[in-house]
């Protein structure tokens, strides 16, 4: 039907019509008539909703923390400590925010991998996929900006290291261009080194800009998911389906209930900070030396350890390639079989697990020393 000779405008119109069919944009089509396939991999259909649930926990607990948090370099650490020590239920809310953040990122990673393996990006679901990848990036940015806010030693130093790695790009650029990464870094920081300006803008990003961006991207994502339904996900020709409303919704809500129970119990029993040695949690001291053991959060290990092990340009080139490929997956893997995609996703999952749990060991084997 579509030929390359069509004028661009009509091709764009056709693309939009296919993704946003007017006859489907009503509550009946979006809710009542939606069917969810049932097969061996059906569990993957719960992951997106679960990520959404953890995001909702983040919004609620984040708003509650906002009542007491003070985003200045002199007060930030003390105000966070006061939330944990003096505000009734404050420690629980803060732990819930931290644990649910980690849970959200973990679920998002699995969600990306499973939807990739199930070829959920295939036509007409390209917009679902692209908005989903945008959401995944936003989630990681949430993690990066939120990490700085308690203003303790590990937070500030890990942020410094993270931002400095932008500047390392300069060594590969010729002439005046070599200074540009520095400009970029200082623009993000708001001043030559990480300080009050950085804290202010990370705070603004974390509590205003990123949530707004999330709502926008999530709107597109959810609308597309409801319009086009869940992708079939498997190669089987005939799959059983069940109605989205109310059956799948009720199951979805039960999963949310279990998740809430688990994250609540964990947050009550195990302070997130307990996983780090105390010196890293002291208030940041700009005049002292950097303490040992500065590392990013676990969800950055998959890019942190390669940065430690491989030459910088290899990592930059590799991650740009992977990120670009992921964003363009609907057009690159349009004709790839689900079996191949599953192998790719399993490989990626194995890589994630290896770097997250055994990154340190890998580093020591390859480099022979502490990073």
């Amino acid at each position, binding site marked *: 039907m579509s030929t390359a000779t069509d004028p661009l405008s009509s091709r764009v119109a056709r693309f939009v019509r296919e993704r946003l069919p007017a006859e489907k944009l009503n509550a009946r089509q979006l809710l009542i008539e939606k069917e969810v396939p049932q097969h061996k991999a059906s569990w993957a259909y719960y992951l997106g909703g679960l990520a959404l649930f953890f995001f909702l926990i983040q919004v609620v607990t984040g708003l509650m923390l906002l009542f007491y948090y003070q985003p200045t370099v002199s*007060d930030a650490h003390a105000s966070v400590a*006061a939330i944990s020590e003096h505000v009734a239920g404050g420690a629980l809310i803060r732990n819930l925010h931290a644990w649910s953040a980690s849970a959200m990122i973990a679920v998002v990673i699995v969600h990306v991998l499973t939807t990739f393996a199930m070829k959920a990006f295939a036509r007409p679901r390209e917009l679902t996929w692209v908005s989903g990848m945008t959401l995944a990036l936003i989630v990681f940015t949430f993690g990066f900006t939120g990490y700085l806010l308690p203003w303790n030693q590990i937070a500030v130093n890990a942020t410094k*290291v993270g931002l*400095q790695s932008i500047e390392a790009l300069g060594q590969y650029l010729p002439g005046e261009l070599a200074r540009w990464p520095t400009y970029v870094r200082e623009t993000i920081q708001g001043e030559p080194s990480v300080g009050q300006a950085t804290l202010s803008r990370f705070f603004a990003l974390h509590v205003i800009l990123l949530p707004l961006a999330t709502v926008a991207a999530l709107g597109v994502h959810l609308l597309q998911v409801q319009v086009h339904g869940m992708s079939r996900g498997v190669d089987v020709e005939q799959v059983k389906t069940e109605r989205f409303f109310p059956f799948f919704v009720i199951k979805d809500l039960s999963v949310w209930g279990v998740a809430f129970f688990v994250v609540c119990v964990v947050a009550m029993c195990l302070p997130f900070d307990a996983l780090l040695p105390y010196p890293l949690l002291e208030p940041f001291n700009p005049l002292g*030396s950097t303490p040992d*053991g500065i590392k990013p959060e676990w969800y950055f290990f998959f890019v942190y350890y390669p940065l430690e092990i491989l030459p910088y340009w290899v990592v930059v080139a590799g991650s740009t390639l992977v990120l670009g490929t992921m964003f363009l997956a609907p057009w690159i893997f349009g004709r790839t079989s689900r079996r191949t995609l599953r192998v790719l996703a399993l490989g990626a999952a194995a890589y994630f697990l290896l770097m997250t749990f055994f990154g340190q060991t890998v580093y020591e084997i390859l480099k022979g*020393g502490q990073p």
Partner: protein
Amino acid sequence: MMQSFLLLGLPYVAILGCIAGSIWRFRTRRFSYSALSSQFLEDKSLVLGSMPWHLGIFVVLAGHAAALLFPRVWAGLVASPTFLLSVEAIGLAASALAFVGLSVLLVRRLTNGRVQAVTSVVDLVVLAIFLAQIVLGVLIAVIHPYGAAWSTGTLAPYLWSLLTLRPDASLVIDLPPLVQAHLALAWGIVLLVPFSRLVHVFSVPLAYLWRAPQVVVWSNPRRWSSSVAAATVLPARRLFLRGAAALSVGGALLAAGTAETLGRFFFGPRLSEEQQARLDARKLERLRQTQREKELAVERAAQRYIRIATLSELDARKGRYFIDYEMRPALAFLGEDGLPLLISAKCTHLGCTVASELDAQGRVLCPCHVSFFDIKTGMPNAGAPAKEPLPHLAWVLMDDTQQVVASRGADGRDYGRVDPERAASLSVYIAKREERVS
């Protein structure tokens, strides 16, 4: 005499009677081992009476059991005024519920002809005793409140003294008459269990909750249509009731707990003076630190020279941190030539601050990714993540009259010379613009 029989003799009579009587009844009249349902005879007011009565008495008995069996745990809990008040309120509410239910049941026994036909004297006695016991309990709760707290030091030890065969009535002998009457009546009820419908506490049909629904099929063709209806309605209704009860109880608990926590979260902390002082001291310390940083920045903007230390304060092995003109950390050592050695402390890899102590090879360590920098050359060790050397900083030496006597440029060349005898009185500075003395 009477009092000590009621408090010490009756309990043992009651317990032994209850055990022996139950065994006797189970062996001789096994099929009477239940409450002998009258649901077939009348079911409308039975629901209105039986449901509230059993719900209420279950909650009340659970509270009694918790306080009497685990007095220490319970005493710890009721030490919280919120908990104590909640328990008292819940107990009173449950008693009221049980009272209403029991009254409905009593009226039913007395007014419904079909039920009366199967009512024995013992049934009426049981109803009357329970009614009296509830009234006594409510009166105690109103006249001598906070029984949930005071019972842990009186009634609980008394019960345990009975159970451990060291009967001791001294703890309850002086309690108000109402309480003693409540106690005596309680033992009476225990004694009554095997000889009345109360045996059903030992044969509660819990399996009803999860067994498959029983379908009543009438052999009479006239009833066939209604039997089908029963088969479809009953399980649905039971499931609905069970689910609704669980959801409402769980929901109420959840709502109460959440509301309480949320209320206190937003009410905010009310710190004691000591806590407030500690928090303020902590914040003041951070403010001072922020102030020091700002002062450093202002000083660097305004001053031509920044003082690091006197020459004699510098050490060859342990560096002194200072902040250079670009607000970056740097280290000052005493070099082998007896002159200062100033080197940047900002790692050339990813900008961490290097440590200040030299290792055996005269190197400082960046702890972030393990680069060792030789402070004489600034060079990192082979294979380190850092590739660029740490730059040396220029310095000037001034005497106490603020005269520059010697300096070193950023290129490492020295100007001027230092008289070793006066060296101790000299101070090390960094300069905004490079100084060269001849």
